[in-house]
């Protein structure tokens, strides 16, 4: 839905909704008197206070309760909360069986979630073209052109769900984690069931990467320049500097790959990250404290995961990363569309890690839970499919949650998404008309980040579609609401 006011002065063009991103969004492009793009904002239009919802809950309930937050990455929240509650329970290191069960679940979740983004949301744009007719630019259109993609999409996603079910008892609302450990190990039956398919999954992930690279190589200028800009990045890395999606310390680098901070323990995140609130969005804007609000924004997610780590500890993904990083000509990779390439490498890494774990006997261990001395506060960080996810809780003397703060991946990417939208608007807005092509390009830019607005804003279901026109002074001159 679009609208435009041309009759006077600076004006706003509002595009609502953005299609095929997680949740609903609204994009506002503000023009100046000369009709040039002055500002672009990716709004979040509804807020529900999930942090307040869990206040008063018993701390051991939280890993299960937080899964209600989001229908896209419930497992990430389950694991993030569980790790934080380990700290509350006084357990600094869970048993090998517990950690490997959690990792197995995590890799299954990241694999299947990234598969959905790439195959269902992104591949229609990438494989069919941004300007392909609307009736073709969807997953069915992709299947028509590339029949094998449908098979990959379904079976990779299903395999990830099977991993989640095998570790957590069911594919939604898994109940694997408890503070200090896990409820179960991996049965031989489930292990063998997953072993049977894992080689094929690895191969299909590799096939998907090759298909994507063929797109990249045939559209190199577009791939390199579209919505691209240098930025800082942040992710977890392991103690050896390698990619670690489950545990480690925070590393942030600037656009020239100079460390901003590294080795930051999760408990100390607030010393390095500041959350700013802005009047026009309900979503917070985190930034790096030492760089300030103007320069401290950063990107997270697959692109950040690859830029921040020194290597990947699985051979196929590591070789793919080496080829990927060559795009940066000795520096970092900043292309926004490279999120998709990076996402596919993360999928390969997850599939390789799953295969590795399925041959690890620790998964059949019986030492599942540890206990310790209760603490009042716990922080945990994991790399969710969309990037760095922070869970922070305080618990009172009655074992009830007294405070919670969640910084989800999409929130971390908030400023970057705004900048991507503005860049696209500057490049593709001509005259005073919002064309179908401009709409497509804006959506493509936002989808690279795979935003999960349901998660970030705690919104649900159908929100009204609001189209607003404002003049330069912010006065609303027209509003259209579509339920």
């Amino acid at each position: 839905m679009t609208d435009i006011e041309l009759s006077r002065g600076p004006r706003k063009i509002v595009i609502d909704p953005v299609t095929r991103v997680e949740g609903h969004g609204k994009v506002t492009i503000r023009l100046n008197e000369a009709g040039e793009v002055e500002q672009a904002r990716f709004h979040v239009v509804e807020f529900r206070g999930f942090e307040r919802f869990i206040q008063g809950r018993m701390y051991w309930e939280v890993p299960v309760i937080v899964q209600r937050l989001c229908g896209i990455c419930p497992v990430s929240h389950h694991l993030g909360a569980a790790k934080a509650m380990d700290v509350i329970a006084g357990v600094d290191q869970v048993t090998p069986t517990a950690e490997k069960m959690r990792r197995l679940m995590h890799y299954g979740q990241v694999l299947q979630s990234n598969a959905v983004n790439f195959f269902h949301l992104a591949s229609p744009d990438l494989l069919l073209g941004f300007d392909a007719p609307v009736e073709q630019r969807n997953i069915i259109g992709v299947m028509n052109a590339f029949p094998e993609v449908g098979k990959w999409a379904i079976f990779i996603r299903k395999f990830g769900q099977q991993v989640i079910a095998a570790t957590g008892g069911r594919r939604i609302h898994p109940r694997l984690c408890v503070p200090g450990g896990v409820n179960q190990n991996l049965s031989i039956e489930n292990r063998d069931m997953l072993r049977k398919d894992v080689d094929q999954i690895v191969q299909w992930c590799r096939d998907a990467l090759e298909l994507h690279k063929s797109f990249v190589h045939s559209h190199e200028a577009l791939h390199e320049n579209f919505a691209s800009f240098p930025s800082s990045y942040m992710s977890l890395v392991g103690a050896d500097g390698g990619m670690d999606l489950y545990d480690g310390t925070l590393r942030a680098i600037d656009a020239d790959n100079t460390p901003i901070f590294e080795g930051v323990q999760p408990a100390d995140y607030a010393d390095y990250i500041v959350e700013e609130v802005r009047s026009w969005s309900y979503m917070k804007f985190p930034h790096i404290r030492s760089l300030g609000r103007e320069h401290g924004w950063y990107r997270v997610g697959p692109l950040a995961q690859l830029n921040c780590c020194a290597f990947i500890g699985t051979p196929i993904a590591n070789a793919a990363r080496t080829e990927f990083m060559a795009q940066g000509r000795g520096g970092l990779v900043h292309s926004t569309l490279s999120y998709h390439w990076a996402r596919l490498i993360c999928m390969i890494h997850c599939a390789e890690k799953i295969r590795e774990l399925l041959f690890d006997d620790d998964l059949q261990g019986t030492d599942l839970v540890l206990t310790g001395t209760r603490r009042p506060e716990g922080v945990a960080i994991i790399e969710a499919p969309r990037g760095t996810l922070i869970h922070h809780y305080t618990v009172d003397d009655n074992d009830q949650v007294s405070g919670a703060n969640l910084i989800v991946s999409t929130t971390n990417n908030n400023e970057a998404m705004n900048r991507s939208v503005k860049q696209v608007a500057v490049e593709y807005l001509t005259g005073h008309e919002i064309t179908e092509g401009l709409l497509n390009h804006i959506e493509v830019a936002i989808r690279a980040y795979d935003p999960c607005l349901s998660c970030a804003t705690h919104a649900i279901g159908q929100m009204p579609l609001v189209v607003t026109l404002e003049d330069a002074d912010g006065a609303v001159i027209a509003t259209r609401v579509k339920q």
Partner: protein
Amino acid sequence: MDLSSPVTPPRILVLGYGNPGRQDDGLGPAASTRIDEMGLPNVTAYDNYQLNIEDAMDVAEHDVVWFVDAARVGPAPFSVRDLHPVAAIEFTSHLMGPETVLSIAEQVFGRVPKAFLLAIRGYEFEFIEALTPDASDNLRLALEMLTDRIGAPVAAARAS
């Protein structure tokens, strides 16, 4: 498909979707859970937060599929409509529609079941893990209809 056939009982799938942590958004999962608890022969029931691409595999393996979702607007206590494959652009992956799932089933597996959407009217969608009383009433009436619809062909098959 002749649903009254006494020879080949239809394989029926009841697929409820929604978030039980968001009050009446849990109507779909509640419906499929109740159906599952009935243990009806030839009836499979499961739930998920949302529909997704892999559901096409399960859908293709059944003869009749009932998608069950909460409705924020529309008639109470529920509405039913036939579904057919549509290769539409989805708004988000949250909202992948049953028509798209059917379309993927047709495209990848070459098979489309007879399909219905049962939309049960809900009213509140906050962070509460319970249905509202009015939604619970709607669920009860919807289940009466649904068990009658899926029970009839099954009963006919068992009598043969």
